């Protein structure tokens, strides 16, 4: 798995590609930490090219939420394939996150005052 990191204005966009599992979750975690270390206040995780996610991937996202809240970092997630979205739904994690159908909806949320 690889994670492209793109800065679009004040939004840091992370684009994981491939399969996010116990072996690759560290790469995803490092990408989030990199964005945080650079001072990101708005992070968008675009899952359009993600084919698979396990609890390791979900765990990485959840492990950052408390810190994001503390640092007032806004997080949005978008463009999940149905089988990826289903993994969030099984655990009810989808209700705790700001998940959008596409990047423009996610950007609109992140750019809200």
């Amino acid at each position, binding site marked *: 798995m690889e994670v492209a990191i793109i800065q679009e204005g004040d939004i840091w966009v992370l684009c994981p590609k491939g399969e996010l599992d*116990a072996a690759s979750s560290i790469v995803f975690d490092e990408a989030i930490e990199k964005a945080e270390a650079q001072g990101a206040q708005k992070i968008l995780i675009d899952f359009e090219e993600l084919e698979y996610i396990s609890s390791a991937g979900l765990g990485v996202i959840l*492990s950052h939420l408390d810190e994001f809240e503390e640092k007032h970092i806004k997080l949005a997630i978008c463009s999940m394939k149905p089988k990826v979205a289903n993994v969030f739904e099984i655990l009810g994690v989808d209700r705790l996150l700001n998940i959008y159908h596409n990047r423009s909806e996610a950007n609109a949320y992140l750019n809200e005052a």
Partner: protein
Amino acid sequence: MRLNLHIPYDSRYLSDLRRFVWRALRPLELSEITLNQLVLAVDEVCSNLIIHVPAAATDRIAVEIIVQDEWLTIEIVDTSGRSTFDMKEYVPPRIQALIRSRRKGGLGLRLVRSIMDKVDVFEREGCRVWRLQKALVSEKAS
């Protein structure tokens, strides 16, 4: 139908494991979401075994997929010789507590129990066996 795979206690082999399960179950004509859930359940159990494997373990994890009488049974045999695990004592972690603790793990078994109809863990011939079962009748894609 009976299919077997043996993988090392190494997370680099998890993608091979997922492909094996996916190919084995594809002929059952399940929906894409159900198929992904079943692959995920096997991945979660094996990931857990790999992450917590005793350092001295040199053997392999044995995975057997059995389809019989409208039931899918997946047996995952942990040959590392660790002590048994009592599923009855397992308490699923609360999501909010996980978030506050900033822990990265802890959701795998909860996912497995949500996906499968039956999850049993028992000992057989000195190995710990995880038996995951799913009734197939209601799961066939329409």
